[in-house]
């Protein structure tokens, strides 16, 4: 089975950017959607692709549904590989201040 790199689109960047800003606390799909404004139809396929590529991992919230009165949330984290790839992408996209841009 082949492992492909996920397509880096605007919504993908928003998702990984949000997860990168909260490295310790996992985020649920609803939390990511709320902060980034990404629609659920775009969000979940993107999360699925990122997880399939090994950039993200997800785990169930450690609560008892009967205690909290709702189903368990699925929380997403960046993996170390995902964090490395993400940082590389963002450093490519960010303007490199101080870089020599012209010389006579």
């Amino acid at each position, binding site marked *: 089975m082949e492992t492909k790199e996920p397509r880096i689109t605007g919504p993908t960047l928003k998702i990984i950017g949000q997860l990168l800003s909260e490295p310790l606390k996992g985020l649920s799909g*609803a939390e990511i959607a709320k902060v980034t404004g990404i629609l659920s139809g775009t969000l979940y396929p993107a999360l699925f692709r990122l997880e399939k590529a090994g950039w993200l991992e997800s785990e169930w919230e450690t609560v008892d549904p009967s205690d909290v009165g709702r189903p368990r949330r699925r929380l997403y984290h960046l993996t170390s590989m995902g964090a490395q790839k993400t940082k590389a992408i963002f450093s490519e996209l960010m303007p490199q201040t101080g870089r020599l841009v012209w010389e006579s």
Partner: protein
Amino acid sequence: MGIVTILDAIAARLIADEIKAWLPGLSNKLLNRAVDLLPTKMQSTYREQWAADIADIAGDISKALYCVDLIRASVGIALDDEQTTLAREVKLWMLWKTGFLKLELAEWKQETEMSDGSLHGTIRMVLVRVTLKDWFGRVTQHKFFPDFVGNATPRQRKRLCREGGATFGAVIVPNKTDVEELKLPSDWPE
């Protein structure tokens, strides 16, 4: 204020109450529909995950809209998961080449298997690439025209088009001839 205004207000209130009563049930139906569209192995996980996410959204209308879009999410996930490429063979032939025109034919053959093992087969896709140069030597057009050979389902065609498009340098829309150019891969034969 006439009696009509009062009746209008009462009617509006009754309609609003009715909609409010219906929305949770509608959200549940949409959630069930979205989950049904997923591959069987994923259904229980996503059912619980999405139910929790919906519970976190404020407002019945927002919940219902979130659920409507979950159907699109299911289709997207199912398309990404549906098949595994077992083998792939790509051949490229130069049909015609002059200073101004280059015509190439590519055959894309892929052996695939659905994620649940329900289908195992080979799909063939034929693509034509036309390259034109103008008087100033500028390349003016790259286009591919997909044609399928074999019994590919619409979902397989769409998936294959996406994969083929990424490799062949274009996003190919099934059953359409217009394409969007993308960057060619570095190992693409000139």
